[in-house]
């Protein structure tokens, strides 16, 4: 059978594969593989293994490694195999090394020589194999060794070689741009290659080059445009067609390049308008690849100098994507919308409902994409809704990577657009509470700074309000279990600094809370340090105001415990606290001035305040101070002092160790120690931190002022969606108040008023429908700035209701698409009530068969039986219109592809390819014969997978 499905391996290998296929557990599989590794280790190092055997061992090594086990013992044999003269063995060797080795592996150096030799081979297949290896294995250091030969191959007579040589150079460029800088002209030359494959390959390196330096390639705009035009006009050989599209992959690459070249360049862009417009018109939007090109066109249009006509076409395509049933297209639509709103923000408005649908979609991927879009279109008017949504979503997910990202986005948006200080604090609290350990520590520092400085306005009253609201919210939160460390640091700091400032809470209350924190998080030293310092501050403020300080017993025991702590940092803080408490009010006030965290602290590095004292001492006959440099200079000379130095150094090392201990907590803490060690007595951490932030302070305050200016305008808007508590002013516009009433009414009692207001009539009897639609409407209004006029909204209600009804049925995932399609069809004609009535029972009844069709399918080996059973299930359980049943059936058979139904299983995405599908089907005339043969062969080999996975025999393409 040769390559045509025969298995050229030994029985042994087939048995291995079979036993792994039948392994019931990971442990069993591991055992088999480990055994195989032992066998291979033994066999492979036997002295005269025949080459053919060796080849099989190498392939088995690849297999073992693919299953996730270490096959490094055999790497050297794979390397050896590349030296072989026979192409078959060489090819196996190269395959194995490209799979085994990364480019930084030590063995690479042994292969370079072989590669050099093979690149010169007369046999172009050997050259191709070597070039494949070059692309994977050659690293920055070895590029010079092969570069001249690769460049020479650019002129090879075989197009396959030229193509791979281009790709190899591209790879070199990625690895080390300088190494091929002088060869850039070669890429330009290859662009005119006779072979379309080579031309297409050349676009890859050119894309990279143009990304880095657009201006040097502006002269190519005309060439690219003309190539794209020719491709679109089907001038390339037929074999480059893919699903009736002329060389789509080349088109996509060209569009990508043009997007770069036309960006911000009117003249270059003008050259492109015609061809891009043509593609928009010609593209077949029913196939996946057609949509891929359309999407790339949108990317191009949104990147080049804007052209109203093209933007319009792009908007049309986006509308089509968003209305589509396919999640893929919706996703692309959302992404494309995000790109296009940069140039024409008004487009978003007409798609608001589609966007909200996507936001509420059960598909996580789509949801995230939508959040990305919202992030891009956040303004002061909609920041509250968007950030609230983001936080809700953030709380609901477990994926730390994405959580971090969305948390930092929330922070960014909140900092940029916060409508009020109060909201800002609340938002930050939520972010910290749920993702505190994931956000950057700087965010916490920013928050502390913000609370200390206020929003940069000269209104002390507002600042103190901000602080007391922060204190209150923290006192509320502090009792909750398992708060993130970063958040606790912020809480402790704020409570220490402002806990007693407005006199609302007593010192003993706050200190009690702080002690609780220190106890509850007893293994977090940073938090404890913050807590102790805060305690000290509170006591200091108390003393300074002349009140008597009664330390709580638990506080006392905490301090005692900490003064014996292993962490010298904590110890120091504890002792300092005790020292401060013993001082009188005047001294304390100087050490710990109240609300002085923003004051500048000037550090007298020369310690000039000691001058008088020093003078006195010198007069009394003390040695003058010699600076360290001078001292060490002298030490080098004099032997006598050498000993001294020893002492000094040993002292040094001793001290070093002593300070070493708290190191783990050092990086995460604000650098108080450095200051503390210089001034010894004044261990105030905040000043040093604030001094640091002082520099940064100016720029944020500008932006803050900016945002606060903007904020004034949106007081009204904020009310639409935001909680009533936020609204600080009563001066909202009439429209927003009316909206508010709508909001309340709809919440209080179902439908009546809302309907009379927003909808006309027919379907008003459906409660959930209306509620959702009005809610959605509100969401849309608050998201999209509410700029849509009321009458406009009225007109979209029909659409909304359609969507809403579909949404109502959507929850059970399985029948979503069919129902939705009907809903979409009936957007204009309002959905008759019957549909919904029918819809719900179908959902319930048809769900059992469609929950997991695969499971069912797997249980039944006979394909005909399967289809019939599925059909039966659908028909029997489903009293809905035929259309629906049909849809469900195709939808199910699409991915599961039962053999009996070759056409439906052709591919999930493109039914339009029936043409080609049929063609391949025809060419597979002896299809059944083939598969029978295969089956027979397999059985003959003794490899009969047990029935638990009949999928193995299933044709991938249906």
């Amino acid at each position, binding site marked *: 059978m040769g390559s045509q499905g025969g298995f050229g391996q030994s029985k042994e290998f087939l048995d291995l594969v079979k036993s792994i296929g039948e392994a019931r557990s990971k442990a069993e599989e591991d055992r088999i593989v480990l055994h195989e590794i032992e066998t291979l280790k033994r066999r492979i190092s036997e002295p005269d293994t025949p080459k053919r055997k060796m080849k099989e061992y190498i392939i088995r090594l690849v297999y073992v490694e693919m299953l996730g086990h270490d096959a490094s013992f055999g790497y050297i044999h794979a390397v050896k195999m590349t030296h072989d003269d026979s192409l078959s063995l060489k090819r196996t060797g190269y395959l194995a090394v490209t799979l085994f080795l990364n480019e930084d592996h030590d063995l690479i150096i042994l292969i370079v020589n072989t590669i050099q030799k093979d690149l010169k081979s007369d046999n172009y297949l050997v050259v191709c194999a070597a070039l494949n290896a070059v692309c994977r294995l050659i690293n920055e250091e070895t590029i010079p060794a092969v570069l001249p030969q690769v460049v020479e191959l650019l002129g090879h007579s075989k197009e*396959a070689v030229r193509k791979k040589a281009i790709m190899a150079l591209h790879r070199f460029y990625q690895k080390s741009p300088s190494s091929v800088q002088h060869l850039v002209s070669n890429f330009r030359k290859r662009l005119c290659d006779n072979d379309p494959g080579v031309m297409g390959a050349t676009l890859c390196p050119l894309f990279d080059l143009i990304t880095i330096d657009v201006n040097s390639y502006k002269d190519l705009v005309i060439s690219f445009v003309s190539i794209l035009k020719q491709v679109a006009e089907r001038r390339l050989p037929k074999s480059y067609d893919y699903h009736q599209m002329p060389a789509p992959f080349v088109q996509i690459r060209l569009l990508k390049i043009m997007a770069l070249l036309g960006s911000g360049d009117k003249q270059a862009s003008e050259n492109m308008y015609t061809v891009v417009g043509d593609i928009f018109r010609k593209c077949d939007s029913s196939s996946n690849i057609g949509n891929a090109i359309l999407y790339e066109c949108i990317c191009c249009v949104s990147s080049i100098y804007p052209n109203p006509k093209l933007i319009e076409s792009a908007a049309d395509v986006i509308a089509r994507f968003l209305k589509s049933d396919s999640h893929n297209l919706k996703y692309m639509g959302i992404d494309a919308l995000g790109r296009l709103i940069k140039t024409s923000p008004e487009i978003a408005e007409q798609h608001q409902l589609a966007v909200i649908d996507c936001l509420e979609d059960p598909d996580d991927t789509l949801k995230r994409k939508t959040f990305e879009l919202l992030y891009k279109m956040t303004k002061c008017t909609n920041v509250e809704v968007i950030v609230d949504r983001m936080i809700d979503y953030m709380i609901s997910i477990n994926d730390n990577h994405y959580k971090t990202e969305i948390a930092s986005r929330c922070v960014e948006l909140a900092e940029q657009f916060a409508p009020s200080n109060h909201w800002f604090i609340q938002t930050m609290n939520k972010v910290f509470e749920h993702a505190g350990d994931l956000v950057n520590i700087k965010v916490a520092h920013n928050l502390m700074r913000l609370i200390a400085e206020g929003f940069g306005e000269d209104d002390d009253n507002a600042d103190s309000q901000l602080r007391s609201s922060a204190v209150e919210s923290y006192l509320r939160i502090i009792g909750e279990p398992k708060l993130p460390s970063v958040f606790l640091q912020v809480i402790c700091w704020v409570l220490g600094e402002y806990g007693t400032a407005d006199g609302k809470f007593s010192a003993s209350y706050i200190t009690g809370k702080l002690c609780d924190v220190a106890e509850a998080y007893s293994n977090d030293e940073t938090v404890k340090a913050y807590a102790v310092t805060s305690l000290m501050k509170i006591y200091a403020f108390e003393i300074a105001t002349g009140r008597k300080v009664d330390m709580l017993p638990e506080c006392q025991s905490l301090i005692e415990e900490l003064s014996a702590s292993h962490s010298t940092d904590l110890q120091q803080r504890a002792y300092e606290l005790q020292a401060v408490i013993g001082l009188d009010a005047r001294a304390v006030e100087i050490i710990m001035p109240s609300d002085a965290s923003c004051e500048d602290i000037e550090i007298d590095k020369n310690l000039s305040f000691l001058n008088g004292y020093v003078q006195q001492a010198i007069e009394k006959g003390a040695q003058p101070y010699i600076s360290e440099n001078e001292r060490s200079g002298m030490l080098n000379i004099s032997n006598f002092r050498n000993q001294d130095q020893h002492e000094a150094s040993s002292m040094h090392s001793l001290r070093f160790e002593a300070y070493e201990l708290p190191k783990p907590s050092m990086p995460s803490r604000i650098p108080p120690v450095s200051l503390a060690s210089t001034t010894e007595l004044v261990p105030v951490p905040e000043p040093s931190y604030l001094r640091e932030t002082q520099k940064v302070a100016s720029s944020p305050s500008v932006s803050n002022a900016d945002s606060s200016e903007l904020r004034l305008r949106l007081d009204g808007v904020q009310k639409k969606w935001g909680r009533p508590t936020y609204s600080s002013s009563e001066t909202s516009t009439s429209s927003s108040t009316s909206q508010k009433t709508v909001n309340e009414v709809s919440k209080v009692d179902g439908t009546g008023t809302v309907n009379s207001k927003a909808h006309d009539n027919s379907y008003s009897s459906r409660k959930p429908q209306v509620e959702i639609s009005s809610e959605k409407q509100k969401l849309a209004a608050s998201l999209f700035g509410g700029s849509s006029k009321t009458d406009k909204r009225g007109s979209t209600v029909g659409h909304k209701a359609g969507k809403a009804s579909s949404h109502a049925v959507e929850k059970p995932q399985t029948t979503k698409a069919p129902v939705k399609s009907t809903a979409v069809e009936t957007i204009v004609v309002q959905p008759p009530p019957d549909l919904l009535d029918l819809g719900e029972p179908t959902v319930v009844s048809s769900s059992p068969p469609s929950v997991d069709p695969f499971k069912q399918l797997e249980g039944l080996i006979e394909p005909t039986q399967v289809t019939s059973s599925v059909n039966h299930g659908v028909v029997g359980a489903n009293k809905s219109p035929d259309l629906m049943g049909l849809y469900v059936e195709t939808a199910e058979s699409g991915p599961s592809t039962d053999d009996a139904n070759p056409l439906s299983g052709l591919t999930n995405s493109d039914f339009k390819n029936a043409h080609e599908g049929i063609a391949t089907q025809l060419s597979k005339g002896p299809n059944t014969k083939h598969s029978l043969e295969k089956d027979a062969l397999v059985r003959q080999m003794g490899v009969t997978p047990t029935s638990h996975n009949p999928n193995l025999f299933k044709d991938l393409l249906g």
Partner: protein
Amino acid sequence: MIHFVLLVSRQGKVRLAKWYSAYSQKERAKLIRELSAIILTRAPKLCNFVEWMGLKVVYKRYAGLYFCMCIDQDDNELEIIDIIHHYVEILDRYFSSVCELDLIFNFHKAYYILDEILIAGVLQESSKRVVGRLIDAQDSLVEIAKEQASLVSSIIAQATK
């Protein structure tokens, strides 16, 4: 660019793994575990894309096999779906109606074919005919080499008798 190509069966078994970016053996194992957990559990009607660690993974299911490709943030997902399909069509031609079993036993051939389609993480050839011709040329050369080898060995065997 494409960072890696992964073929995973519905049972979570790896059928093919090709890495275009550098990943250590440990990272690979972790990544395969994580990704198959995400992808195999996704409902059939959802997007064929998953955002993952700042990259995107495009997957498509054929019978019991999931073809996955991991791409950069700014790549075109729909195009990748078609690159996957392109690969499957070529496999289908080569094995004449390919099934999972073909790939299990001939995984090295699947690798050879992939090497003619993708190189260094980008699509190198979009013509099925060109790929097919190259693969055939390689196969036939291998066949010739095999015949020669057996001829030589038989001659040697005869001579040593």
